[in-house]
C-alpha cells in the first residue's frame, strides 16, 4: 500500500488522519472541531468516522440517527462514498458516519478496506478528516499511514504518552512489514526486530537499517529509509492545564526520533475546557461551542498551520 495518495489531481482531497491509540484522549472532539474550522475557512471538508468498532462522531455533530453510514457503502447499498456523506448544519462540512451495529464492522475484509481507501481519494472535497478508532490493529494503522498528514493526539498522562508512542512504533513496523511483503527473509528479520530483547541485538529502527544494509544484497534499504523517512508526524497535546503539561507531546517526538528515526512537528496544545466535556456528555453539538473557548482557539491555530502546510 502506497503511503500518501496522489495529490497531482487538483480535485484530490488532502487527507488528515487523527490517531493516537488510547481511547479517551479526545481524538473525536479534536477531529470534529478541526473539521469545523477547516470548513469555516472555506475548505470543503468531509469528516469521516473510521472508528469502525465504536462509531460516535455523529453525536458530536448533533445527528441522532444518521440515515446513511459506512455500512451502506461497504454492503454496496451505495457505490460512491460521496453518496453517503451527510450534510451538517455547518456550511462546507459533511459527515461520513461510521454508525452501525457496534463492533460488526471492526474488522472489514481486506478488499472492503482497499475499496474504502480508493474511494477516499475520489471524494469531492478539499479536506478529509479521518477520526481513527482506538487501538493499533492493522486496519487503524493502515488508515493512519495513507493520510497526507498523520496527527497523533495525546493527553499529558503517562499512559497516554506511552500508548501514543506505541501507536507510532507499531505504525512504523506495520509500514516496514508491508514494504517487505515480497521479501520473506526481510519479513522474518522485522519480526525478530519487533522483540525488544531479540538475539540480534537490534534495538532501534536505525540499527535495523544498519543490519539490513550489511546483510541484504538488494537495494531495498534505500527504499525503506526513504519510506520511513517520509512518515512525518504531527503531534497535538490535548487537555493541557499548565505550561509543564505542554511538554507531553515533546516526549513522544524525542523518543520517536531516537528509536524510530521519524521526524515530527509539534502542532501545539489544546487547553483543557470543562465545557467541552459537559457538551459531550449532554450530547450538545460541538459546533455550538462558544467560540471564545480557549480550546476552540487552539484548534483554530492548528487548523491554520495545517491548511498552510
Amino acid at each position, binding site marked *: 500500500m502506497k503511503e500518501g495518495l496522489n495529490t497531482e489531481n487538483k480535485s484530490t482531497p488532502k487527507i488528515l488522519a487523527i490517531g493516537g491509540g488510547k481511547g479517551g484522549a479526545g481524538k473525536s472532539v479534536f477531529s470534529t472541531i478541526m473539521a469545523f474550522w477547516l470548513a469555516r475557512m472555506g475548505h470543503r471538508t468531509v469528516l469521516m468516522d473510521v472508528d469502525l468498532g465504536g462509531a460516535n462522531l455523529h453525536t458530536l455533530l448533533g445527528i441522532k440517527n444518521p440515515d446513511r453510514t459506512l455500512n451502506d457503502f461497504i454492503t454496496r447499498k451505495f457505490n460512491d462514498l460521496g453518496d453517503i456523506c451527510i450534510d451538517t448544519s455547518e456550511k462546507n462540512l459533511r459527515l461520513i458516519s461510521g454508525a452501525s451495529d457496534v*463492533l460488526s464492522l471492526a474488522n472489514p475484509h481486506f478488499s472492503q478496506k482497499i475499496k474504502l481507501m480508493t474511494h477516499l481519494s475520489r471524494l469531492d472535497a478539499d479536506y478529509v478528516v479521518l477520526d481513527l478508532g482506538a487501538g*493499533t490493529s*492493522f486496519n487503524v494503522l493502515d488508515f493512519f499511514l495513507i493520510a497526507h498528514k498523520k496527527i497523533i493526539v495525546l493527553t499529558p498522562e503517562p499512559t497516554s504518552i506511552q500508548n501514543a*508512542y506505541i501507536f507510532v512504533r507499531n505504525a512504523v513496523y506495520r509500514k516496514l512489514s508491508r514494504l517487505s511483503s515480497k521479501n520473506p527473509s526481510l519479513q522474518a528479520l522485522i*519480526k525478530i526486530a519487533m522483540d525488544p530483547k531479540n538475539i540480534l541485538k537490534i534495538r532501534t529502527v536505525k540499527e535495523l537499517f544498519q543490519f539490513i544494509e550489511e546483510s541484504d544484497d538488494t537495494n531495498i534499504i534505500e527504499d525503506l529509509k526513504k519510506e520511513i523517512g517520509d512518515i512525518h508526524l504531527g503531534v497535538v497535546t490535548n487537555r493541557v492545564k499548565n505550561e509543564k503539561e505542554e511538554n507531553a507531546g515533546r516526549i513522544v517526538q524525542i523518543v520517536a526520533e531516537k*528509536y524510530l528515526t521519524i521526524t515530527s512537528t509539534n502542532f501545539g496544545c489544546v487547553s483543557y475546557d470543562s465545557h467541552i466535556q459537559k457538551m459531550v456528555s449532554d450530547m450538545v453539538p460541538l459546533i455550538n461551542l462558544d467560540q471564545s473557548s480557549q480550546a476552540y482557539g487552539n484548534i483554530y491555530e492548528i487548523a491554520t498551520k495545517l491548511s498552510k502546510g
Partner: protein
Amino acid sequence: MIDRIDRQDSVVNRIIDGSITIDSVEEFKDLFKAFPNDPRLHRVFADRLLEEKSINAAEEYKTSAKLFLDAGMPLQAIACKIFEWRIIKPSKEDGLALHSALCECNPQNIEVQKFFTKLAYEEMIALMAKIVPHNYPVNAMLRKFGDEENELCFVISGALEETSYHRLEDDEKVKKKSKTNLIESDIFGEIYPFDEDKLSESDIESITRVELLKISKLKLTALCTEHPNLNLLMQNLCKLRFDANREMYSKTIRKATRHQLPMQVNLKIFQEQSGKPPLKLSGFTDDISLGGTCVVLGAKYQIGNISDLTGKNVKIQMNLPIESISFNILGIIVWGKEIPVEGKKTAIVGVQFKEINPVDRGILKGYCFGSEAEQNLIWSLWDSLMEK
C-alpha cells in the same frame, strides 16, 4: 514469601480499580481458582462480604491480611486486621500473633512498610486503636491549600494528585509550584513538629478510588507522648517521605502502567465434551498484559450464559500489525460478564495466559510496551519535563 504482587494480570487490576464489578460470591470463587493468592482480590471480596453483612467477612479479611504480609505489605495487612477485628473482637493472643507476624515480615523496601515492622506490641495495639479507614471516590478533594494540617494519612490503595503552591509574602496570593502523585504505601499530612500549627501548602485530590488510614494530629500527639519510641519512628518516617517514597513513585507507576490499545483477536474456546467443536468468537482486547487480557466480544457472540465459559481452555489468535505475525496464546477463561458497550449488550471475558513461547512473548512485549530502553527514555523525559 511472595516477592511482589503480580500486577501483570489485567483482570485483577480491572477489579481493583473498580472498572469491573463482581456481582456474586460464585464469580469470586471462580476468580480465586485462577488467582488464589492475590491479597487485593481477597480484600475486595472481604469488603463485598462486609457490605452483605456476612459473618465470613472476618475470615476473608484475615486471609487477605496474611497474604499482604506474605507480599511484604504490612500497612495493607493492618488495614485488613482493623476490619477483621471490628467484626470479631480480638483476644490478646490474636494481637500477639499479628505482632509476631509483623516482626517476621520481610517488608517491601518502602519506609512506610518498614515502619510497621518496627513497632513494639503496645505501640502497634495503641496505633491500631486510633487509626481509622476512610474511602474516597475518584476526583474527591481531600485537602485544599490553606486547610489546617491536622491529620496523618497512609495510602492503602489508589492514587492521589498533590498540587503544591508557593505562598507569597505580601498577600495570600499563590502560584503553582509543582504536581506530584501519592500512591499506595505513601503518606501525607505535614503534622511535625506537633507544637507548630501548619496550614496545607497543597491541594490533594484523588485520581482513582482511594482508601486511607487516618490518624488525627491530636490523637497521634497523645500516643507519641505515651510511647517515645513511636514518636521517634513517626518522625523518621515523615522525614524520609520525601526521598525514598518519591523514588518509589515512578517505579510503582511503571509497574502499574497498562497497555490499553485494543487489538483484534479471535478466540477458540474448547468444549469439555470431547468431539464437540470449539466455540469460535471474535472481539478486541480491552486491556492486555503479559499475564492475561480482557476481551470484549463482538456483538454477535450469542453463547447463552457467559459465565458458563469460566474455566474453559481458550486459544487466542492475535493478529499483530506485522504482516507475517499472527500467533496463538493458550489460556484459560477465568471470568466472564455481560456489559453494555455503546448502549448495546455485549460481553467481556477475562483470560489468564497459560503458555506463551518465549519468541511470542518477546514480540507481544514489544507490541504492547516497546523496549525497556524506549520505556526508560519516556520515563526519564517525563521526570525531567513534567515532574520537576
